[in-house]
């Protein structure tokens, strides 16, 4: 009961705070409109593209080769154009020059992919398809290496239509700019919950109300739970409003599995609240607020909230920065699910977010119990 009461108070205060309403609702919706409209052209060329061009260097043999050939044949039916690598070509440079959207090196031990970051969305699609295939291919290669007898079956498509069918791409449904930004900016505000979370305890100390909370016959755990719950609810409500608005007013496409989309966003919201809370305990001072805003802004930027980053080299500085952004994880996972029907990454993202959140919450709860006062 106390938990609910405290959660309700957090919600009341958040919704009375103009900053919350501005940053969590007005800002993403306006930005969505501006970016979605301004960059519509950049996206439509991609969406209109009827083929995704892939340069393939196939060095595999035996069962692996047959497996890939099967995949390739299926993909060619869904609008992918595969070109064989000719000796003397520089695959990466070809992608760089925009002669191809992707470059894949297939060997018996695995598939290596190079994507361009020019046609970010197209590259995302190919990357998604190919990398999903590559994961299975690499697993099969590993089985083959361990037990050559099983290699042949390992590379065969699964009986239920096979991996290729599962991944079938509907090229009519490539994301437009509004679709892209609806997802990206919603994920962004989900992460921005970290900023209000960082303030959950500090604001009580600043207003002196921590003294009253601690003096009241309420356990610290209840205060903690109430605050976390309140912040989650506010953040999730903002996410719901933004999704609904983007769907109804901007006609953004959210795919046909909305419950799973919401689950991914909920996992980001849970992660961001835990992150903000843990950092505010670690850093203690009021400087934690500024530091968290900075981190969250960087994560938004590198996560592709403002412009799509597409496929970036894993080892480049940008690649490392991008791979650290929870926004990018969720963004990629959501796009893969909405446009490719591939929910493997979604499940991974939910698991990762939930796991990290549990760790961070446990750490904050521990720090809270050790601290005098709140």
């Amino acid at each position: 009961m106390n938990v609910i009461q405290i959660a309700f108070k957090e919600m009341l205060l958040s919704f009375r705070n103009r900053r919350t309403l501005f940053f969590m609702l007005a800002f993403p919706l306006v930005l969505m409109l501006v970016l979605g409209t301004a960059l519509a052209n950049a996206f439509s060329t991609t969406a209109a593209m009827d083929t995704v061009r892939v340069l393939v260097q196939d060095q595999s043999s035996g069962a692996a080769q047959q497996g890939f050939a099967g995949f390739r044949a299926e993909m060619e039916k869904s609008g992918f154009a595969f070109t064989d690598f000719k000796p003397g070509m520089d695959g990466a440079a070809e992608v760089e020059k925009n002669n191809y959207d992707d470059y894949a090196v297939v060997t018996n031990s695995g598939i290596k992919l190079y994507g361009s970051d020019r046609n970010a969305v197209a590259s995302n699609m190919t990357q998604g398809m190919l990398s999903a295939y590559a994961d299975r291919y690499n697993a099969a290669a590993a089985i083959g290496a361990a037990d050559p007898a099983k290699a042949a079956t390992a590379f065969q498509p699964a009986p239920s239509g096979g991996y290729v069918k599962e991944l079938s791409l509907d090229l009519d449904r490539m994301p437009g700019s509004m679709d892209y930004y609806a997802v990206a900016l919603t994920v962004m505000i989900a992460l921005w919950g970290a900023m209000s979370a960082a303030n959950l305890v500090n604001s009580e100390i600043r207003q002196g109300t921590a003294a009253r909370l601690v003096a009241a016959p309420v356990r610290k755990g209840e205060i903690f739970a109430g605050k976390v719950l309140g912040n989650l609810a506010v953040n999730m409500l903002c996410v719901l409003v933004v999704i609904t608005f983007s769907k109804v007013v901007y006609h953004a496409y959210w795919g046909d599995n909305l419950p799973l989309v919401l689950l991914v966003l909920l996992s980001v919201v849970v992660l961001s609240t835990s992150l903000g809370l843990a950092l505010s305990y670690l850093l203690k001072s009021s400087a934690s607020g500024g530091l968290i805003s900075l981190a969250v802004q960087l994560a938004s930027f590198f996560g592709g909230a403002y412009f799509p980053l597409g496929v970036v080299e894993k080892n480049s500085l940008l690649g490392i920065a991008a791979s650290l952004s929870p926004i990018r994880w969720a963004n990629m996972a959501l796009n893969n699910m909405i446009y490719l029907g591939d929910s493997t990454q979604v499940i991974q993202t939910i698991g990762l977010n939930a796991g990290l959140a549990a760790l961070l919450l446990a750490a904050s709860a521990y720090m809270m119990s050790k601290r005098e006062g709140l």
Partner: protein
Amino acid sequence: MNVLEIQGLTKKFGNFVAVDNMTLNVKEGEIFGFLGSNGAGKSTTINMISSLLQPSAGEIRILGKDSRKHSRHAKTNLGIVPQDLAIYDDMTAYENVAFFAGLYGLRGKLLKERTEEALEFVGLGDRAKSRPSTFSGGMKRRLNIACAIAHKPSLIIMDEPTVGIDPQSRNYILESVKKLNESGCTVIYTSHYMEEVEEICSRVAIVDHGKIIADGTKEQLKAIITDVKDLSIELKPGSAYSLQSIGKIPGVRAVNEKEGRLSIQSDAAVDNLNRILKSLMDGGAEVKALQEEEPNLETVFLTLTGRSLRDQ
């Protein structure tokens, strides 16, 4: 019956001892004054009672039960008015009081009644729907009190509830404290204003450097200083005098000047009135009136610590 018992209470911040082995009892029905200059350790003591701070040593018992072993019992029976305002600026006066009262288990109709009653009690009944950001300093202080009384605690602890407010609000608050007490509530009233404590408290503890240096009824405390006489001398305007030379007269302990009036503390045993007057008149001053003052808590404090409550 003791509402509060403190035994050997100590709080250290690093090497600094803010509260030093304090022992103290507060009886049911009292308004107990906790008097001391800034930094004496009053708030630190109160924060340990309200469990905001962990004592470094010692025991606190509320209505006979250890406050840490029976923290729920202790907390339910306490009302705290913190020295720094503790209210939410973005919630109305009503919402503030109701939120905190709710944490004490009040619900529904009872919650509504008690909240309205508390607001009425501090004179904010007609401002229930306003936010504190529209309040004057005195009104915020009164709301700060309302938040601590809606759950009808047996013991209410007020930490300098009148700091920095207008005299009108201050009188209102002092009257409220008396009314609360008449309704059966025991009150601990912390202040560094001697006049307030003198006006409303039945018993007083004087705190200095984390220690209680004297406690008892006002009369008992004043009895400590029967050996001191307080003289008040009013001079004709423009009179010249030297505080220094008066201070050198044997038996004079302290001398202060305020608006043409000299207050002099001197040993009761020494008959030095003649010498004081002679010194003044030799200096060319004209005496308009002379009075022997009743001893007050200020004198007690001065005698015990050698410092005025005000000079910090």
